[in-house]
């Protein structure tokens, strides 16, 4: 009941936007709707008619995104830890990490295709590259933000550097890693689409790529809708996982002892 009420504003806003969109396309006439921006009901129709193509394409893209984010979290977290322990490594790699975000996917995707072929691997690499940045930045910030007094305290307890990391720094940086992963979700979907543009014959990005020239804009938008919903679902899933894994980060709302 209360959960439903919480979602109400978002649902109303989406409905209002769809209404405005429908009205706008109707006013522009049928040519506009066919070639430039389809109306919501045309998109809905495509979602239904092309459901088997969209579903199988979605499975391909979803796999790329999920595995890519997983790789980004593993590599990003490992790199953050290394950077946290080595100021030299930080100075050496940070400019490159930032630069990796400035290079457009369209530039390096063909190189990846050349090296890794047209299978899922180059897509994973693209998704991982575009999403690992936010994870590295937030995780490093999380590790840096650990209260220096806590580190001192651990030193008076004769804790080794590694013990302090394990008991104090790692747990306190976990919420930041989750934040980074949540930011990564949105860009990783875009990354997967661009990777599919460059060399593939499946996936929602491929569907978008081939639908536009065939004047199947409704199908392209339908694929986009699925991507958006997927991103929202991933984000919500991460938020849920964070709540379950790190209940302490959410204040004393949990069960009271005894």
């Amino acid at each position: 009941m209360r959960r439903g009420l919480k979602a109400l504003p978002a649902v109303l806003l989406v409905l209002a936007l769809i209404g405005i969109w429908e009205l706008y396309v109707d006013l522009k006439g049928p040519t506009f709707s066919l070639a430039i921006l389809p109306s919501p009901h045309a998109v809905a129709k495509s979602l239904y008619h092309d459901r088997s193509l969209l579903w199988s394409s979605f499975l391909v893209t979803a796999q790329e995104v999920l595995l890519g984010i997983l790789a980004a979290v593993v590599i990003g977290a490992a790199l953050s830890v290394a950077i946290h322990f080595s100021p030299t490594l930080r100075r050496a790699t940070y400019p490159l990490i930032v630069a990796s975000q400035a290079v457009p996917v369209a530039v390096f995707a063909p190189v990846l295709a050349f090296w890794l072929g047209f299978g899922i691997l180059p897509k994973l690499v693209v998704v991982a590259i575009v999403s690992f940045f936010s994870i590295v930045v937030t995780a490093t910030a999380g590790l840096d933000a650990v209260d220096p007094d806590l580190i001192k305290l651990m030193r008076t307890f004769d804790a080794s550097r590694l013990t302090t990391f394990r008991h104090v720094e790692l747990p306190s940086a976990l919420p930041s890693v989750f934040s980074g992963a949540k930011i990564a979700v949105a860009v990783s979907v875009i990354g997967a689409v661009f990777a599919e543009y460059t060399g593939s014959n499946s996936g929602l990005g491929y569907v978008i790529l081939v639908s536009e020239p065939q004047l199947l804009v409704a199908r392209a938008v339908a694929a986009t809708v699925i991507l958006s919903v997927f991103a929202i679902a991933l984000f919500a899933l991460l938020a849920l996982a964070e709540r379950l894994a790190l209940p302490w980060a959410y204040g004393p709302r949990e069960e009271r002892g005894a």
Partner: protein
Amino acid sequence: MPAKGATTEMIEAPPKEPRELNAPDGVRIELVSRGFTTPRGRVEALAGMSLRADAHEVVAVVGPSGCGKTTLLELICGLQAPDTGSVRAAPAALMPQRDLLLPWLSAIDNAGLALRARGVSRDEARTTAAPWLERFGLERFEHTRPAELSGGMRQRVSFLRTLLAGKPVLALDEPFAALDAITRQEMQGWLAHVLASEPRTVILVTHDVEEAVMLADRVVVMSPRPGRTVAEMEITLARPRRRTDSAVVEYRETALAALGSET
């Protein structure tokens, strides 16, 4: 508003007979100076500070804000080295001003953190901490996270964590400053009680003169920064002490006078 230039007559520490240093469990700080370079220039935290605490002695250090008390404790705990002078101290565990409990750990795991830091297993640390939590009146809160504990409970867990570090010296940095007045008085009584049964060498930094007189065997009064000892009094009263006892009030007034003449 620190009145910088207000120099009035200083109360010198009474000359002491040089005692044999009780090396194993004591603290001896001699003419220590310690400064820091900050973006706004050099800050001298301590200048010619001396302090002595024998085994199982409770020494309270009182002084105005920013007189280098925290620096003093970090020197004792070996977190800093003096620029000049000598620091000799048995191993010391710090109880920081803020409780600094780890929000993701339950009370019992926070209490056992020092054990875990030494590589003791979680189960073993819990077995060691459990009877202490009971002694400290926290047995019902073993599995409660800090966010759900009251301020007084958090300080008790924090103190227990320091105690279980197993160091002969406890360096307490304004342990009760963040508590409300009533809880603070309760906690002072509680600490006196605990120390009576678990004697340790305690360096208690506080800005509360009454707290110092209630708990300490000796009170050391520090000057404003750069800090050094300006007065020292033995508190020879029997325990438990009462706040309203005329001798306590007298000691308090003396210490306040020593402080006041310096600020």
